[in-house]
């Protein structure tokens, strides 16, 4: 279910819809593809509504998490499907299929049966099948979610390259934050059918505009209180210094877990806490610290010393990394 959903995408841009399952991201794609019907609202391509256009004439193609390659057709027939439906001559189709196969890096597999393809190859072929008709809009609905990590990384790069090369306007749907950031020019965070943030990945990652969006990009320390003269009187943890001296009134400030530091002695903006858990994550050390009523996650870059459960520490919040979010 979507409510108050509005998004505009520029020509040639790759936009990611990022949201948890059930947030309505797939619905958006199905509405554009014409698989589901819009109750009210409008969808426009180049300023013109497409709602009255037959779904198969819209020039928007969709690729799903499963490749949905037709099992009774071979690779060549699968890729050529869209063109064949448009009545394109077989000789032309043959050439286009060949071109597509080299574009996706799998030349010469025309006669292969669908059942003989690996998961990654299947998705590459499905991508070729979607692109062969030269659609105005390419929609990818979690196309990589069922693949192994290494295959997935390769395909992320491949899709992004192909998208840039063809300059095709693309909507990519995923629930994976790092995938979304790696793949998009802009990303929209979709929560409960509502776009809570829409901006460049690096902006949304470092400065999410509201609490809900911030939580979704991994922020979990929020300080709420009365700001004045460069200080925030946070109800839960006490006074914290801010960089922004002009801020006055009730407000919420947040900080990313990577920017929080842990130290033994008290300094400016340090809060006394107790270590709850300490997990080695490879590229970082993840520490849960209880600060009075609050609990926060801290990500320390490696190498870092391990902390013991129940250890008393000070959590330091550098003022330059504190940013304001809408409640």
């Amino acid at each position, binding site marked *: 279910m979507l409510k108050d959903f509005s998004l505009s995408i520029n020509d040639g841009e790759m936009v990611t819809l990022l949201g948890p399952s059930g947030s309505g991201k797939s619905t958006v794609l*199905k509405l554009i*593809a*014409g*698989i589901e019907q819009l109750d009210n609202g409008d969808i426009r391509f180049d300023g013109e509504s497409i709602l009255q256009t*037959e*779904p*198969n*004439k819209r*020039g*928007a*193609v*969709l*690729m*799903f998490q*499963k490749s*949905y390659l*037709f*099992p*009774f057709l071979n690779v060549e027939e699968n890729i050529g*499907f*869209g063109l064949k*439906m*448009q009545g394109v001559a077989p000789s032309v189709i043959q050439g286009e299929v060949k071109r597509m196969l080299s574009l996706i890096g799998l030349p010469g597999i025309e006669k292969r*049966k*669908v*059942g*003989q393809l690996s998961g990654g190859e299947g998705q590459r072929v499905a991508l070729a*099948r*979607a692109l062969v*008709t030269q659609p105005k809009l390419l*929609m990818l609905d979690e196309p990589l979610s069922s693949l192994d990590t290494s295959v997935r990384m390769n395909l992320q790069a491949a899709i992004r390259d192909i998208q840039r090369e063809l300059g095709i306007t693309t909507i990519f749907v995923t629930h994976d934050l790092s995938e979304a950031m790696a793949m998009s020019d802009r990303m929209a965070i979709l929560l409960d059918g509502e776009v809570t943030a829409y901006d460049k990945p690096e902006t949304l990652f470092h400065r999410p505009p509201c609490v809900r969006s911030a939580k979704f990009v991994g922020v979990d320390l929020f300080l709420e209180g009365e700001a004045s003269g460069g200080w925030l009187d946070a109800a839960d943890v006490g006074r914290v210094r801010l960089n922004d001296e002009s801020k006055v009134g009730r407000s919420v400030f947040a900080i990313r877990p990577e920017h929080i530091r842990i130290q033994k002695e008290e300094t400016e903006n340090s809060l006394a806490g107790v270590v709850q858990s300490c997990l080695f994550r490879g590229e970082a050390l993840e520490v849960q610290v209880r600060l009075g009523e609050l609990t926060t996650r801290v990500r320390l870059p490696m190498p870092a010393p391990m902390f013991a459960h129940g250890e008393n520490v000070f959590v330091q919040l550098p003022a330059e990394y504190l940013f304001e979010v809408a409640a």
Partner: protein
Amino acid sequence: MKYVIRALLYLVLVAPLALFIVYSFTEGWFFPAPFPSEWTTTTFQRAMDDPRTLGGMWQGFVIAVIVSLLSLILAFPAARALGLRQFRGRQIAWLVLFLPTVVPPLAIGMGLNILFLRVGLAGTIMGVSLAHLISTLPYTVFTLSSAFARYDENYEHQALALGASPAQIFFNITLRMMTPSLVVATLFAFLVSWSQYLLTLLIGGGKIITLPVLLFTAASGGNPSTIAIKSLLFILPPALVIAFTARELNRHGNDIREQY
């Protein structure tokens, strides 16, 4: 031991058929003679010369083909709705479609006969075919709806999202995906119609003579050779149909298995 049991099973299945073949080409083989005294093709000849035999086979075949086609056309949308959709009254729809399997055909036949006499369908091929539909539809609907219950509509969505029109999707995707089940459903309809006796007799009213009707007449006549020949002729077309579709089905089965 396993082989002995298997051999016995085959024997039980094949013995009556073998006996039919023997009976078809003998005359006057009576107890306690251990073997037929005389081999002859005259009974066979006689049965084939009787125009009612080939006529009955032809009429039965035409009716079975009409019934199969109508069953598929009627069952396909019903099965799709039952297999893929949840809707109010779904259970009742199931019940109504399956009622003919429990209601005695005699009861249906009598009522239909009165109705068909009024509208002029009694004694016609079309009338008999329509009556047969009552018996075949539960089987075709059941076969197709269980296939639709496993059917992934996303293949159709995918085709739509690749620019195929609804008609193109139906012929290029839906029918292709459903082919194995359509073959089985057709087979059921054909066999049920081909072996239908009571409804043919009631609605056909003596004007439509199919092989089962002749077979029942012969059975009450008591000449084992005649019964044997007609039974063999009765088994032949279904056996051929099954032999043909078994190969087809096996191939499709392999195609589908490769997917998973």
